């Protein structure tokens, strides 16, 4: 299965970026093979709607889950509509986050965990 982790850097040893909409990179990982590719978040600097643009990138990537630190309500809703489950409150190295996810230790949140100003 393909998942996306927001990341501060371009490899699995980077830290999980705590921001969803303004994350530096999205790492798209195949959880079976641990093969990954890096998507730069071009919308990170945008003043409005960064979270929405990020959501579109994630949806287009075909990922089924996104692992990140914080996610606002609009992004959360858009991702849900696009069939992507959001797991918030994730930190540490990207590789560790993926391992935890594979062990079933991370569960999708029921809702956004920050107000709209963060992600939007």
């Amino acid at each position, binding site marked *: 299965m393909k998942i996306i982790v927001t990341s501060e850097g371009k490899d699995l040893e980077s830290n999980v970026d705590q921001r969803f909409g303004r994350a530096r990179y999205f790492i798209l990982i195949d959880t079976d093979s641990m093969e990954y590719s890096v998507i730069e978040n071009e*919308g990170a600097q*945008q003043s*409005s*709607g*960064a979270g*929405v*643009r990020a*959501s*579109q990138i994630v*949806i287009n990537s075909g990922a089924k889950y996104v692992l990140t630190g914080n996610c606002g309500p*609009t992004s959360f809703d*858009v991702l849900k*509509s*696009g*069939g992507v489950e959001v797991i918030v409150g994730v930190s540490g190295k990207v590789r560790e986050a993926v391992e935890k996810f594979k062990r079933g230790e991370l569960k999708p949140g029921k809702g956004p965990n920050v107000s709209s100003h963060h992600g*939007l």
Partner: protein
Amino acid sequence: MIISVASGKGGTGKTTVSTSLALSLEGEVQLIDCDVEEPNSYIFIKSENLKEISGTVLVPEIDKKRCTYCGVCQQVCEYNALVVLKDNVIVLPELCHNCGGCALLCPQGAISEVDREIGIIKTGKYKNVELIYGVLNIGEAQAVPLIKKVKKYINRKKDVIIDAPPGTAHPVIETVRDSDYTILVTEPTPFGLNDLKLAVGVMRDLDKKFGVVINKADLGDREVYRYCNEEGIEILMEIPFDREIAEGYSKGLPLIEQNPAYIKQFRDMYKTIKKLVYPSSERMVK
């Protein structure tokens, strides 16, 4: 002439100045309250029979029968107000800036523009004052589109007083953009001075003529005066603190009705502003 009344923050006496200035002038005046998030001029300009008009903006609506989910509209939208999914297009109206670009460029002609109400515009009349104000709907994030709608009512043939939103952000800039003069209302306190400096910065960025009215002039310190002197900023009027004014205000009584002696002061201020805005025509008249 269009005069805006603004302040670096709320609660400095902006509405006291705008409503009393409007009521003091001879002849027909428009008072336009652009503080759409918290309009309060109507408390003092007691117009009966307010007319209400819906304030709307155009947002896209997708015709699912035509849409091929090609994603063009999402790429066109600079404001990320559209998300294209496999079998749906999500419109985020609160992000939409109503540019119409998506409708224009959709290859399938699947996008039409529909009205979305963002607030109400109310108009009325009291004495010599035609009052126009907007009330932004609750939960609506963008004040600027409604401010633009309210400003469409400006009649340049009349004297126009605009009550600007407090602060120094985009709504204020939109409000004072085409004013001939802006009155900045402040209080002589450290906070007042700080907010005044920010507001002055905005005026200078916009290259706007402006002057200062000091409210509660006898409370606080002299720093605002010193600052205005140093910067060569005109102090147009001072309103000392007065318990009766404060009580009148809380009852919705305009300053000049509470204390008619102020009528002359407001008229004088108006004349001063007119000279500052039209210096050459003044000489011609003489």
